[in-house]
Every structure is written in structure tokens, then in C-alpha cells.
């Protein structure tokens, strides 16, 4: 009997340990399974490029096809292989890949905080001298955009997509039906909200479950109330910067909008990424949508008729009593290509980056509804599918005294994620504006 007990104990122990180990399997697989996928920094003949896989990726694919056939690629002795990583998984996939032997040679990123950890780990090619020595790269891009993604004054990325300011989009037919004009002041905006709600239309579409669309509201409100310096201070590492009165006031205005039903009652479970919020907007269930300029190409892809005839756009209104310049813009100046320091074929990779300064590339971007950040962009805008929209965007950015990088991108993943959580709680009514400020001050 005694020995029997001993045996059952060990059997029990195994049962427990065996089932319990499933708990770690999730994380463990993530950590140990990095070796799969992508030939990466292997032989130098094939250079892998990771790109954010959304509707705009066809422009990068065309550039890869063009470059692989070019004399420059033949001279460097290899080809580029584009790997399209689905949008919502892009950052974690890039991180696991970069820590593994099969890292990409070239990768898409948002500049600034989004690549800081890679730079600190010595994983990035410093492009400053390469750009200075190369006439094509040196004069190819708008200097302000090129340096917007800098770290400590050094360039680590080449602009590769259109500029992405956040714009107040509106549904023209809904506005016409209710005789409305896009708001230029906050009071007008509240007035429009009241009229729309009376007509049983949700004033604003909002993909609240993704959290980052919520962030755009705070970014603009803080800028309009206190100017770009408020966030600059936070970005530079002073968490007391969250205590600025502009942040609290912005959070209060957000709460007022939420309580007022400006985003409808269901926005916390609506997503932008899966197409929910754009559909609500395109189908006229919501009248306006504060979103990055990519909203145009998203709508063009999903609801082309709406994008072509009923999509209107305006700058974010001024807020009464605020000190920020109404011409200021928030958003992503652009996206960048960076090069992995461990690439086996840097010439091939750099050659590919030069392709992004070419007129053919800029033309493809324009045709996709984007506004390139290349210096040759302005003359191409006339041939855009919607020259009016392209010019609006270009002028908006060109005239902006300040272009604040999206807060999450500027702060990096660790802080950005925690900030998203706090913003989610604020919008969901789980924390008050003052609790929000206190929580943000405590983020580290």
C-alpha cells in the first residue's frame, strides 16, 4: 500500500505539471519559436524586407519588382523579397524576428520611439553619412520629414510612404442633407453634434477598441489647448508634463463628448482595423471621422463610391481659450525603411532605399491617393486620383508650424501601450479625467 501511494503521487504530480505546463506553452512558443520564417540576413543574395501589410502595400511591391530587374540590383548581386506582415501583428512580429537569426534586412517603421530600442541594441545602420554622400537620397526628400524620424540627430530611416496627418473627415451627403458646414471652432463642433443627434445620426465614427483612434482626439485637443510644447515635454521624458492643465482640460472635453454620445454608445467595441468604423462612416451612420490621411485609401478600397463622391475633409477646429496654433498638425509624418546592421548585402539594401526617391515610386504613391514626402511631390499632385485632396494634405503639412508625431509612436512600445490602456479607460468611462492625468503621470 505504501509503495502504491508513492506511485500515485508521482502520477498525480505529472498530471498536474503536465497540464500546467500548457500555461507556459503560449509564451514559451513565442520565445523559442523565433527561428521560423524568412531567410533574412542569410546569404546576401536575397534580402528580406518587412512591410506593414495594408491596402497601400502594392506600391512597395511595384518598387521591389522594379528594383529587382534594375542594373543596380544586378550589380549588388541579389534581389529583394518583400514580406507583407498583417497590420495588427506588425510590431510584435518585427520584434521577435529582429531578436532571431532570421531578421529582415530592411524593415518598415514609424521612426522615432518605434525604433529607439533597435538603435540602442545596435541593430540599425546609421544612414546619416550614406544620405549625405548620395545626391539622390540627399535631395530626394522633404528635409523636415526626413529628420522627423531621427534619433539624437542621426538619420536611421528613409521616408517610404505618404504623409499621414490626422484629418477631420466628414460625410458630404449627410452634411448637405442637414445643412451643415465642417466646424472651425469647438463650439461649432458641439453645435453640429447636437443637430446630428437630433437627426439620430452619430456625430463621430470611432474605432475605440483599437485604442489608437481615441488617442488622436487627445493629441489634437492638447495641441489646440496648450500647443505642441505640452507633449514635447512628455516625450522628452518628463512625466510631470502630463500634469499640464491642457491635458486635464483635453481629457475633460473628451469625457464631455463621450457622455454626450458624440461617438455613439457602441464605440468601445468598434474597431478601425477590421473595417467597422470606416463602414459606420461610409454608410452614413456616423457623420464625421477623425482619422489619419490613410482613411482616403481605406475608403477607396472598401467603399469606392463613397470615397470618390461623398468624402469631405477639414482641419481640426480651434478650441476656444487654447493657445495652440490652428495650423498645427498631429499624426505620422510618414513611414520609414530602416536597414538591419547585420545585413549581408548593404549595397543591395541601400540601392533599394534609393528606389523610394524615384519619380516612379512617387507616382505610384500619388496614384494610391497618398501624398509623397519626396521633394518632387508637388508637381505630381495634379495627376492624383483626387488632386483636391492631395493638395489639401500637402498644404496642410507644408504650412503647419508644428507636426507632432503620434504620441504612441513617439513614446515607444513600452510606454505607448500603457498610455493606450489609460486612454481606453478614459474613453470607456472607467476613469475620470483627473484619474487619467494621475495615472499617466505614474507611467514608466
Amino acid at each position, binding site marked *: 500500500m505504501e509503495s502504491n*501511494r508513492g506511485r*500515485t*503521487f508521482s*502520477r*498525480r*504530480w505529472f*498530471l*498536474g*505539471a*503536465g*497540464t*500546467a*505546463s*500548457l*500555461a*507556459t*506553452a*503560449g*509564451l*514559451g*512558443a*513565442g*520565445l*523559442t519559436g523565433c527561428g521560423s520564417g524568412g531567410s533574412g540576413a542569410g546569404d546576401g543574395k536575397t534580402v528580406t524586407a518587412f512591410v506593414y501589410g495594408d491596402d497601400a502595400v502594392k506600391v512597395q511591391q511595384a518598387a521591389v519588382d522594379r528594383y529587382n530587374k534594375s542594373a543596380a540590383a544586378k550589380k549588388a548581386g541579389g534581389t529583394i523579397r518583400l514580406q507583407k506582415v498583417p497590420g495588427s501583428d506588425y*510590431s*510584435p512580429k518585427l*520584434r*521577435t524576428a*529582429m*531578436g532571431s537569426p532570421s531578421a529582415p534586412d530592411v524593415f518598415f517603421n514609424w521612426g522615432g520611439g518605434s525604433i529607439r*530600442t*533597435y538603435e540602442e*541594441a545596435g*541593430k540599425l545602420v546609421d544612414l546619416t553619412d550614406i544620405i549625405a554622400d548620395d545626391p539622390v537620397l540627399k535631395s530626394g526628400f522633404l528635409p523636415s520629414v526626413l529628420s522627423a524620424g531621427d534619433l539624437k540627430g542621426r538619420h536611421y530611416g528613409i521616408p517610404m510612404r505618404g504623409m499621414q496627418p490626422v484629418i477631420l473627415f466628414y460625410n458630404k451627403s449627410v452634411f448637405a442633407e442637414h445643412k451643415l458646414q465642417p466646424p472651425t471652432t469647438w463650439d461649432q463642433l458641439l453645435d453640429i453634434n447636437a443637430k446630428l443627434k437630433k437627426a439620430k445620426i452619430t456625430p463621430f465614427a470611432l474605432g475605440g*477598441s*483599437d*485604442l489608437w483612434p481615441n488617442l488622436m482626439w487627445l493629441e489634437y485637443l492638447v495641441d489646440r489647448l496648450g500647443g505642441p510644447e505640452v507633449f514635447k515635454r512628455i516625450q522628452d521624458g518628463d512625466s510631470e508634463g502630463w500634469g499640464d492643465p491642457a491635458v486635464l482640460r483635453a481629457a475633460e472635453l473628451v469625457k464631455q463628448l463621450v457622455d454626450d454620445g458624440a461617438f455613439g*454608445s*457602441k*464605440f*468601445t*467595441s*468598434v474597431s478601425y482595423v*477590421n473595417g*467597422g468604423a470606416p*463602414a*459606420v462612416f461610409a454608410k452614413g*451612420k456616423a457623420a464625421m471621422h477623425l482619422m489619419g490621411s490613410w482613411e482616403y485609401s481605406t475608403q477607396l478600397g472598401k467603399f469606392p463610391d463613397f470615397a470618390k463622391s461623398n468624402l469631405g475633409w477639414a482641419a481640426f477646429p480651434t478650441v476656444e481659450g487654447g493657445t495652440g496654433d490652428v495650423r498645427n498638425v498631429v499624426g505620422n509624418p510618414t513611414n520609414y525603411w530602416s536597414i538591419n546592421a547585420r545585413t549581408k548585402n548593404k549595397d543591395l539594401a541601400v540601392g533599394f532605399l534609393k528606389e523610394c526617391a524615384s519619380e516612379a515610386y512617387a507616382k505610384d504613391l500619388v496614384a494610391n491617393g497618398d501624398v509623397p514626402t519626396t521633394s518632387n511631390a508637388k508637381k505630381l499632385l495634379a495627376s492624383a486620383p483626387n488632386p483636391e485632396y492631395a493638395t489639401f494634405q500637402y498644404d496642410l503639412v507644408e504650412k503647419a508650424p508644428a507636426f507632432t508625431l503620434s504620441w504612441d509612436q513617439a513614446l515607444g*512600445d*513600452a510606454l505607448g*501601450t*500603457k498610455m493606450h*490602456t489609460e486612454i*481606453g*479607460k478614459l474613453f*470607456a*468611462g*472607467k*476613469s475620470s479625467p483627473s484619474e487619467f492625468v494621475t495615472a499617466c503621470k505614474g507611467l514608466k
Partner: protein
Amino acid sequence: MTSTVQKTSTVEQGSRKASRVGRPHAVWALPAVLFFTFFAVVPMGLALYLSFTSWDGLGDPRPVGLDNWKKLLDDPRLTQSLTLTVVLTVASWAFQTVVALLLGVWAAGRQRNRAVLSAIFFVPFLLSSTAIAILFYALLDPNFGIIQADTLGSQSGAFLAIVFVGGWQFMPFHTLIYQGGARQIPEVLYQAAAIDGAGRYRQFFSITLPQLRHTITTSTVLIVVGSLTYFETVLILTKGGPGTDTAILPYLMYEAGFKQYDFGYASAIATSLVIAATGLSLVLVRLSGFGSMRSTREGM
């Protein structure tokens, strides 16, 4: 009972013969042991190691002693997350056990269409849990779904959706376990009960349930451990929201690991989940008397 008697007598006949027909050789366990070592023990050990380091996924992990564990205890989100995890586990258990037990007992019978219906009931378990979550996400879409209520927008709604989707997916598996368990119950017990005048309900509560005691333990351990590691449905349906209302521990682990790239902290959460799951399994097994492997058919 008879087979045990036979085995004992074989052993007495001689050790050579016993080694041939008796217990399987240890080598037979090798594939399972290797698999378990590489895909469970080694990752578990790695997670334990990482929980004492700071690692952002790049470069080498840097030892930081107990920092991650202190951070875990100080984390203001821990209490909420722990409560949610416990509530989810209990709710999943109650929902799945009741329905799966009834379905399983029904499926063990000999009714018409039973085989066909049982096969159909089993289908959800064959689907990928990600696919199921995406499917339900579309069905529950507040503007374009079939219900068009804001199910995922409130804590209770989102929570019930998670419990329901998980139950819908895993119930077939537990039904199958109960079906097997119920089939093992000797027919004579029911016949004797019928002679004694016991009705349907009396038979269920006095014969079926007690006879399924060990099956219930097995199924419970699997549900409890499964709920503790339940993750992808939460990620896809709610992303822990609204706010942090459905951010259970595994989701917190994912967020720390794959959003904040704080793998040390994520590993501390993972390790604590392993400890919790192991502890709970042991407690359940001990409480139910499953470990002593007493037969439910003693005296028959």
C-alpha cells in the same frame, strides 16, 4: 478485478515472462517524454529564468533578481486581473460542466439520430479557436452583426461572450469525455434501480452522477487549467476591453510580452500561472479522491 488476479499470477510464474507481457518498457514513453521536455519543460524553465531577468527581445537578458516579481505584486492591475481570471474559470466550469454532462449522458444512450447529432455537436471542437473567435467577433459586431446590441461594449456582456464562445468551443470535448464515462456505467445498475422503482431523475442522481465522479474530476481539471490559459478569444473579441474589464492574466502576460516587450515581466506572470495551475490541479485531484484511483465499481 479478474484481470488483476490474472496478472498477479503471471508475475509469479517467472520474471522473464513478466517482462514480456507485463508493464510496458520505459523506452515506450520516450517520444512523449522528449516531446514534453522540449515543448513544456524547457520553455517552462526558460520562462522561469527570464522572470529573473530584464529582456526586451533584442540582445541578451540582463539579470535583475526579484524585480519582476516585486513589480508583479505591486502592479495595480494584478488584483483586477486575478479576480477576472478566477471568475472566468468558475463561470466556464459551471457552464461547460452542466451542459457537457447532460449532453454526454444523453449521447451515451441509444436514441434514434444520436450518432448523427453527436457528430454535429462535435464540430466546434475541430475548428481553430482563432477562427471561432473571429467568427463570433463578426456575429457580435455592434453595427453590422446579427444582434446589433453592444454586447462587447459592457463588462458583463463582454465577459459572458467570452465564457459562451469558450464553452461553445470546448463543450464537445467534455461531452465526449462524459459520453465515454457514462457508457462505462454497467447496465445492471439501472436495471436493478428500475426494479426497485427508481425513476429517471433518481437514476441520474443516484447512479449516473456518482459513477461519473472521476470523469467529472478529469473534465474539471482540464477546464480549470484551460481557463487559466484562455487567451486568443479574449485577444480577438475584446482585447481586454472595454477599458481593462476583461484583461485576464494571460492577456496581461501577452500585453507585457508582445506589446511592451517586457519579456521578463511577462515571464513572471507566466510562471505564476504555471504555479497556480499546478497547485489547483493538485488540490482538485486530492479533494476528489481521484489520486488514490479507487474504483467506482467496488463490490461489483
